[in-house]
């Protein structure tokens, strides 16, 4: 079996600087705090191996290595990482597609908690800020609210989002204004409810998106579309919201 080489981002906030593998810092004050560094590992290749399995093999070698993961099939959204400069889900990214040594870093632009584990608080706050739930004003029927297959089709490409954060953490506008710009993931959800024939809060949703930041910081750079592991298109959804705003204002 051939070996796979990975260079992995390490940050161990609790470690004593002297005890860690980190290169020594020149400055006395800096040396008191652990520093991030890249560490090289070799793991055995397996047929059809995914990046997640390589990360698990690293954890076998070094129990202190931390990363999030769970379902292993691209539906839970836990294991978003940056591999060779591109955000991806480790569990559905084949090793064979990646140039070695594979550079594995945490999702960019988020505070690092430890190794590949980042703080996603602001990402989730922006999701919550778009009121991501169906709002009905009419009394509810005894049975289902009817929806034609054509209207239901409008939700395809929207509802499948798994909140992995690959898109928003690849977005320069989100890097600059994560506190004010909703970011592609949250705006995709905003459109998911605007596009739902059952939702009855279109005006409120659009009003809440007014202003220079929440929606309009999107400059159609399309990094989100490039990286989405589910093949969704947040840029297009953002465009649709803007079109609807224009329609409603005339």
């Amino acid at each position, binding site marked *: 079996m051939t070996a796979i080489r990975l260079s992995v981002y390490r940050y*161990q*906030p*609790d*470690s004593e600087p002297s005890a860690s593998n980190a290169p020594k810092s020149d400055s006395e004050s800096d040396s008191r705090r652990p520093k991030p560094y890249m560490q090289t590992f070799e793991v055995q290749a397996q047929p*059809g191996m995914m990046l997640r399995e390589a990360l698990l093999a690293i*954890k*076998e070698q070094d*129990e*202190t290595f*931390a*990363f*999030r*993961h*769970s*379902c*292993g*099939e*691209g*539906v*839970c*959204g*836990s294991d978003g990482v940056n591999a060779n400069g591109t955000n991806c889900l480790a569990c*559905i990214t*084949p090793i064979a597609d990646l140039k070695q040594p594979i550079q594995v870093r945490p999702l960019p632009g988020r505070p690092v*908690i*430890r190794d590949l*584990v980042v703080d*996603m608080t602001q990402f*989730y706050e922006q999701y*919550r800020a778009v*009121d*991501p*739930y*169906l709002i*009905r004003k009419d009394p*509810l029927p*005894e*049975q*289902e*609210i*009817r*929806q*034609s*297959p054509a*209207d*239901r089709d409008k*939700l395809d490409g929207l*509802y*499948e989002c*798994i*909140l992995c954060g690959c898109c928003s953490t690849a977005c320069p506008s989100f890097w600059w204004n994560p506190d004010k710009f909703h970011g592609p993931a949250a705006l995709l959800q905003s459109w998911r*409810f605007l596009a*739902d024939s*059952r939702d009855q809060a279109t005006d409120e949703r659009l009003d809440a998106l007014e202003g220079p930041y929440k929606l309009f910081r999107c400059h159609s750079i399309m990094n989100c579309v490039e990286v989405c592991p589910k093949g969704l298109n947040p840029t297009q959804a953002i465009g649709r919201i803007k079109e609807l705003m224009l329609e409603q204002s005339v």
Partner: protein
Amino acid sequence: MAAVRSLPHRHFDALIIGAGGAGLNAALRLADADLRVAVVSKVFPTRSHTVAAQGGVNAALANALPDNWHWHMFDTVKGSDYLGDQDAIETMCREAIPTVYELEHAGVPFSRLDNGRIYQRAFGGQSQHFGGEQAARTCAAADRTGHAILHTLYQQNLRAKTHFFDEYFAVDLIRDDEGAILGALVLDIESGEPLVIASKTTLLATGGHGQVYRTTTNAFINTGDGMAMALRAGVPLQDMEFYQFHPTGVAGKGMLITEGARGEGGYLINSDGGRFMERYAPHALDLASRDVVSRSIVTEIREGRGCGPNKDYVLLKVDHLGADVVHQRLPGITDICRVFLGIDPAKEPIPVFPTAHYAMGGIPTDRYARVVAPARHGPEEVVPGLYAAGECACVSVHGANRLGGNSLLDILVFGRAAGTDILSYVAENPHHRPMRDAYLEPSLDRLSRWERRGEGERVADLKAELRRLMEEHCGVFRDQATMAEGVEKLKGLRARVENARLRDHSQTFNTARIEALELDNLVDVGMATLMSALHRDESRGAHSRVDHPERDDERWLKHSLYLRDGDRMDYKPVRTKPLTVDSFPPKPRVY
């Protein structure tokens, strides 16, 4: 570890451990009623394993074909091999209908029929008129129904302002001298700090434990945490020998291929290209019950008719359905095949093998989701303040074998039932019971055991050994000698886990510590499974004994109870009496 008194305490009316469909549906009911609700989850809620459920949720809406909740009830009782409790099954099948409408109103993007109603597909074990023609009872959002439901429930909980403790790991229940549950000790994974959550009521909704097997459709997080917490609190586990092997996991890898693939018209073939289910289930064919289909696949392979170079799998054909049906109705399956097998299922058949999937057994509850255990006044005395729902619980609606589409239904109906009963419990018991330091000691001891330093075996090695052991000694087909040997090996392994050591004692986001605590849980549920299976010397549902191939209603129409203290077995009767209709008496089970 911190001294007991210095631990921070939080107080809630309801503590819900687990943020899958059961936990979130209970939380929604309670938060909408203005209770103080805490949901503790070791992962961000939408990472819970409900997200991976594919095919759908059963309800007799009769949107596609004639249907009736009573037929659903018959199919579920028969599917359970008559071990299911018929009062609970009646409750579930009746409640299914309003439950699905409620989900739809909450926003679940169900697929639709031309008349705008919810799309329903055929699934295994479903019939019209009590065993007649195939029914179409499974409400679906393409093949991503669990994802659609979990995200919708999380979203509605955001609206209802439920209090979430994301990435907190529940260590153990807190129990007082009278056996009442006062909440739980939990660990903040990010900081590594323990926290006491004192609560008037506690709901265990922690899901399954597929990680006890080497190859499983289950996620890394499915480690039986709630079941093991119940065991350590003195509550038995019920019917743990009944573990479902899903007929169609991706061979050698384990990813789930939904039964909906067969519901849409797919079928299984062996190395001769023969449609072998014709021989095992002449009427229902590939939509026979899961235990039947899994045994048929293993039998084909054992008799030399497996496919591939090693003749160790069979093939699931859906290519004859056409690319439109496959890609539109089964988009998630299409993705899995492309990513993990490099094939398009609309063009090539899928290699599949029965894969560890679902626990029919679990924490014993009544149909109000209250945990019940043997005590002074009988086998089903309520444990005050403790509830369980979903895969970690055993109501029991699945008995010896669960029907596809009934697990999403179970979590929703009994999650909600737990919420309803918690409302009345809190109204009648408005004050917290007194908390004493001594009640916290067992859970703090459990944490400090993993703080010991020095030499010792590694968690990862022991976990791998456990998973191989369970696969070898408690799989699809079982016998006395193999299982007895398994029990002895597992006792040895359990003793070694006691002396294992962590290398990593850091505080911040220490996943090695979490995996060690999970290993404790896996060992406990593994032992419950093996012990229960060893003692039941009959074949029923998913529990298939080659040395006892017949069902034995005379001796075994009863529920198993495993107690951790002394690895003891106990038994209690099946509730064969429904609430309003006639009982379905045991009959030979043919499909």
